[in-house]
Each structure stands twice: as structure tokens, then as C-alpha cells.
């Protein structure tokens, strides 16, 4: 039932990796890293979904063995992952600014002082 989500998430991850590999612009590389993260976030939150389940908010008296709700753990994981993804993007962009000041370019094929 979540097949569409799984396929979409894999497509997002592949597109992101494709962006990182082929685009020479550093900003686009950072966007590619973001797209990989979004794909994975979609995947994680989809693994916890139960069709027809309610929100996982109960107190101890309401929680009986027949309660049917979506899995709260993947949602927590997704939130963590979103925060981490945002940090990665922010840090990468700040490094791109620094790189632009030092090299006067954002072209990956010209930023190669360290090689060999």
C-alpha cells in the first residue's frame, strides 16, 4: 500500500545522487545532498504508516491491546533526520561561501588544489 511512496523515495535518492555526480556547480551539489535526504526521510516515515491507523497519542487507560495506530518511532526518526539534513545543508552552503571567497568560483572542476 505504501509502494508508491517507496518507489518515489528511491527515485528521489537516485536523482539526488545523479545531481551530486554530474553537476559541477557546488550549490547544485549541495541541493543534490538535500534531495537524497528528502528521499530517505520519505522512506522512513512511510515504513511506519499503517493504513487506517490513528495518531499515536494515548494515555495509559486508553491504551488497550486492540488499539490500531501508526508507528510513532519512524516519525521521531524522520524528525531527527530532517534536523540533521538541515544542518548538513547549512554547513555545506557556508563552506561554499568560504570556497567562493578563496577560489573566486563555484565550479567543482576548478576547485582542485588537493590532488594526486
Amino acid at each position, binding site marked *: 500500500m505504501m509502494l508508491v511512496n517507496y518507489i518515489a523515495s528511491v527515485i528521489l535518492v537516485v536523482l539526488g545522487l545523479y545531481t*551530486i555526480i554530474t553537476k559541477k556547480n557546488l550549490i547544485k551539489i549541495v541541493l543534490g545532498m538535500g534531495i537524497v535526504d528528502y528521499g*530517505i526521510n520519505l522512506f522512513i516515515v512511510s515504513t511506519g504508516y499503517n493504513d487506517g491507523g490513528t495518531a499515536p497519542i494515548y494515555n495509559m487507560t486508553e491504551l488497550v491491546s486492540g488499539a490500531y495506530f501508526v508507528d510513532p518511532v519512524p516519525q521521531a526518526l524522520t524528525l531527527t533526520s530532517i534536523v540533521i539534513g538541515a544542518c548538513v545543508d547549512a554547513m555545506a552552503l557556508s563552506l561554499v561561501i568560504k570556497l567562493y571567497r578563496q*577560489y573566486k568560483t563555484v565550479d567543482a572542476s576548478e576547485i*582542485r588544489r*588537493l590532488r594526486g
Partner: protein
Amino acid sequence: MSYVHFPVIAVMTLFMGAFLTVVLGKHSRAVRSFLAIAASGIAFVLIAMLVKPVLIDGEIISYWMGNWNPVNGYAIGIGYEVDQLGMFFALLVVSTILLSAVYSLRYIERDSSQEFYYVLFLMLSGSVLGLVLTGDVFNMFIMIEIMTFTAVGLTAFRNTGFGSVEAAFKYLVIGSIGSSFTLFGIAILYGQCHTLNMAQLSAMLSGNHSPATLMAFALMFTGLAVKSYIVPFHTPAADAYTTAPSSISMVFSGMVNKAGVYGIIRLVYIIFRTMDIPAVQTLMVIFGAVTMFIGVTMALAQHDFKRLLAFHSISQIGYVITAVGLCTSLGLTGGLFHAMNHTLFKGLLFLCAGAVLRATGTTNLDQLGGLSKKMPATTVCFLIGAFSISGLPPFNGFASKWLVYQAAYDKAVTTGNFLYVFVTIVALIVSVMTLASFIKVTQAAFFGQLPERLKDVEEVPFLMQLPMWIMSALCVLSGVFYNFVDKYLLVPAVSAALGVSRYIDSMMGSGYAAEKCVTDIQASGVHFSYWNPMVWLALFVIVLCAACLCILTSKGSRGEILEGDGEDGKYATFFSGEKALPSHVGGSDLFWGFKTDWKGYFNIMEGLHSGVVNDYALYVVAAAAIVVVFTFMFMR
């Protein structure tokens, strides 16, 4: 029973130290130094106090955060589990942290924004310690991410320097691809097993692999391999080790890539328990052998002190991965012993490089020379480190490399597989090439003539020498008293890595492993006969004396001593003292003949290390694809 809290407190102390440093350490150097030393010292003491219960008494500490114990056989909380394997790596981590913190006090005193250095340093330390102690895969992912961030930040710390921001960016891109693969694998595992606890995952996955879990295995293996910088994921490591401050290069090579190695061991031996499948062994041994060889040949071509050490670091991790991938108790012993020795000698070598950088302002081998007269302590430490990494008896590198050769050859004999014979030969050749390139560094940096520019060089202060002397002493001691190391560190760690059911039982309650039909890995347990390094040392001395005697008695064959003519004079010894041979060989090109012979290979290699981040990302993705295909072809 209070010591069950120590692992968590140790990790929290480091993170709290980072927090306090940013709040209090902005204005006073004394405060931030005190905080850094205090936090790393407390972590060291807490982990050292666990040695008795965990390593000697053989207890496994399991700790549920907030006391959320498992319910009906399902882990619902985040668990910390300290077994002997984790403890072995935790000891390496805390020792590295403490020594590096002491070294940093004087090493970074000329830099600005020192409080941020210590914040990042303590966060990096805390995350690696957390990674080796945790029993939860998602917690492991978080720690990996913190490790990557802080490592990137520290790589770019001297951001006005040559290429450090560039190295940091490449590290971040490659590192985050690796983290993403790990996270994807963890998500698939959660979807299959609905748990994140390592012990419970191990119980559910043992011998019970569906296509989804195989995919998770391939992705997590690739992700962790990126973190341990084996070829072809090594490209950002070479850049980062070169441009980071030397105290951080030591931390990178001493514990950050060990964290990746630990993750791989934990993954293949415990979580998936796939190590007894021959295909996994082949995969790891091939990765290891390729890493060894490419690392060392790239090191031969380098002209920069720290970049050369970086490629050696990559090469030595190849030994560890190869030995661990053999899945024999001998191989595992050798692999873990080499991991420990690598932390000691490579940390020592990076500290020596840092001392040279601080004293002379450069790490370019062409501009160095004759430092032994000005910096005798650094030279002695460097020689001890170089002897250890090259595997000369009685230093520790000899002991562990010998075990690796023995294990690989033993595997070849028992399985009759030609691959392992080949790997043994590669390991021997790589060791010879390591020695060769260290002869080059020693000659280029410490002996020969002192350039005019370096006349006023001074030895580094005592606080920087102290960690170097401690590590030198450890290099010698762990080589000579190998049987103590074996008894108290390696045997417990190896039995923990092979004893899957004990790991599961101590976390999930006894009998859980038997209920899920998990059996321990049956490693072909050859009881190995140890070498004796002192005998080898005696042989070494005898051969040396014999050689000296031959040279001294045969007067006629001694060539004319070459006059020290300028820069070339320091290489006179390598041209047999012949005057007629004018050398146009550059300072760091001692093995130009070898490089010329292998010109084709070196040209290809330099083309591959192109410095373009897209290419590096392509290697990672291509290798991931190969691992996935390999997994599905041979592991089903």
C-alpha cells in the same frame, strides 16, 4: 554496581565539556584548557575504571536509558551495551582524546577562535566514544553524523590555509553520502524488524536473510566503509588529514577511522552475523588488499609529509580490514592488534609531523632536511613510529603484521583458495614499500643537510613532547610485552566479536538467543604459536654487525665519500658515495627509479585522484552499486 552508569557519564562528560567551553571559555585560555583536559581526563578515568569488570571479569554492561527495559522480548528504549569489543575500541578512543588534548594546548596556541576548536574537539570525542559504546543502530547513526560534522569543522579550522576549506567540502559531500547510505540501511532494517536495538536485530536476522535485509546489509556496509576510508572511499581522508591541524589528524587516524572499522566489525560479526558466509569474507579481503596496495603506492608518490602519512594511514586500515575479513580467531586477533598499533604509531607520526610544522612552518619534504640536529626528541620519536609502522622487530607493528601474514597464509592453507595466498604476498610487499617510503621521509626531513632557512629552528615545548614520548613508549611496550596485550585486550575482544549469543543474552535477557536459535560464529580456532620478537631483534643485530664487519674489512670496495654539495648532499648515501653520479633527484623523490618503472600505473592513479568532488562521489556510488550487486549474487 554503580559502574554500569560509567559509559553514559563518560559520553555525557565530553558533550557537557563542549557546552561549557562555548559558554565559559571564550575569554580565558586557562579556562578552556582546563575544561578540555578535565573532560577528556574524566572520560579516560571512567573508561579505565571499566577495565576490571569488563575486560578482566568478562562482564557485559547493558544499560537502558531512562530504565526502559524490554517488554515481551521487544526493545523499546535506547540501550548502551559495553562488551569487550566495544571496550577495546573505547580504550583506544579515550587514550587518543587525552593525548591529543594535551598536545593541542601548545600546538594551537597561535591560532584564533580557540574555544571553537575545543568545542568541536570535545564533540568529536564524545560522538566517537558514544558510537563504540552504543547498542542502538539509530543512536549509532546520530553519532556518525555528529562525528562527520565536527570532523568537517575541524578540517576547515585553519581556513585561511592551503586547501583546508576545499578538503572540508569534499569530506562533507562524501561523508554525507556515506551517512545517507547508512540511514537508508537502518530504515530498511526498521521496516523489516521493527526494532533498532543491535542485540535484538542480531537475534532476528541471524541466518534469516530476506532480499530487504540483504539490501540493508549492502547499504550499511558501504556507509560504514565510507567512514573507515577504505579504497575507493579514501579520497576525502587524504585531503582532510593533510590540511587539518596535526592534533586533529592524529584524532582522525587514531579514532575516527577506527570508528568506521568498529562499525564494520559490529555489522558483519554481530548485527547481521554474516561473517561465516565465504562471500562476505571474500568481499572484505578484496577491499582490504586493494586498500593496502593503493594506499602505499600513492604514499610513495607524495611530496608532502602529512599527505604521505595520510596515504599510509589508509594503507594500514587495509591490513585491519583484510585480517578481520578472514574470520579466523587468528585473523581477528591480528586485525584488532593492528588497529590498536595503528592508533599508537600513526598518532605518533602525525604528532611528529605537527612538531615539524610548528617548528619550521612547512610540511613540504623538499624544503626540509637535517632536523635531527635541531629537534633530537622529535627525531627519536619519529624513528620509533617509523620502525613500528614498517614492522621492524621488536616494535608493535612487527607483532601485528606478523599475525596478519600468518592468519592470511593459514586461511590459504585451510581453504585452499588461491586468493588468500595472493593477499599474503600483497601484505608482505606493502610492508616493504612502507619501509621504503619511511626511509625516504626520514632522510628528507631529519637527516642530511640543514637548509639555510631552517637555521633557527627550535625543539617543540615539553607539553607537546609529552604525548609523543608516551606514545613512543606504548609502541615499544606493546611490541615487547605482546602477551599481556593479548591476554588482557585481544582475547576478550575476539571472543566478544565471535560470541554473538552472549551479546544478545546480556541485553535482551538470558535465553533469548537460544530461543531465536542464534549460534556463535564458529571461527576455525587454530591455536597460534607466538613468535618471539626478542629473537628477531637478536637476529637483526647479528645481521647488522655482520654487514658492518664486511664493509669495514673490505677496504677496497668502499667508494669515495661524496662532498656535501648543496641540497643534493643529503642523498649521497643512496648513491653508494660515488662522486661521478650527479643526481638530479628532488628532495622527496628518493624512489624515482621505481616511479619511472611504474609510470603507467602512477599516471592512472594520479588521474583518478583528480581532486574533483564529482569524481569522488562517483567512486562512492559505483562501489556501493558493486557491493549491492555482489551481495545479491553471492549471499543468497
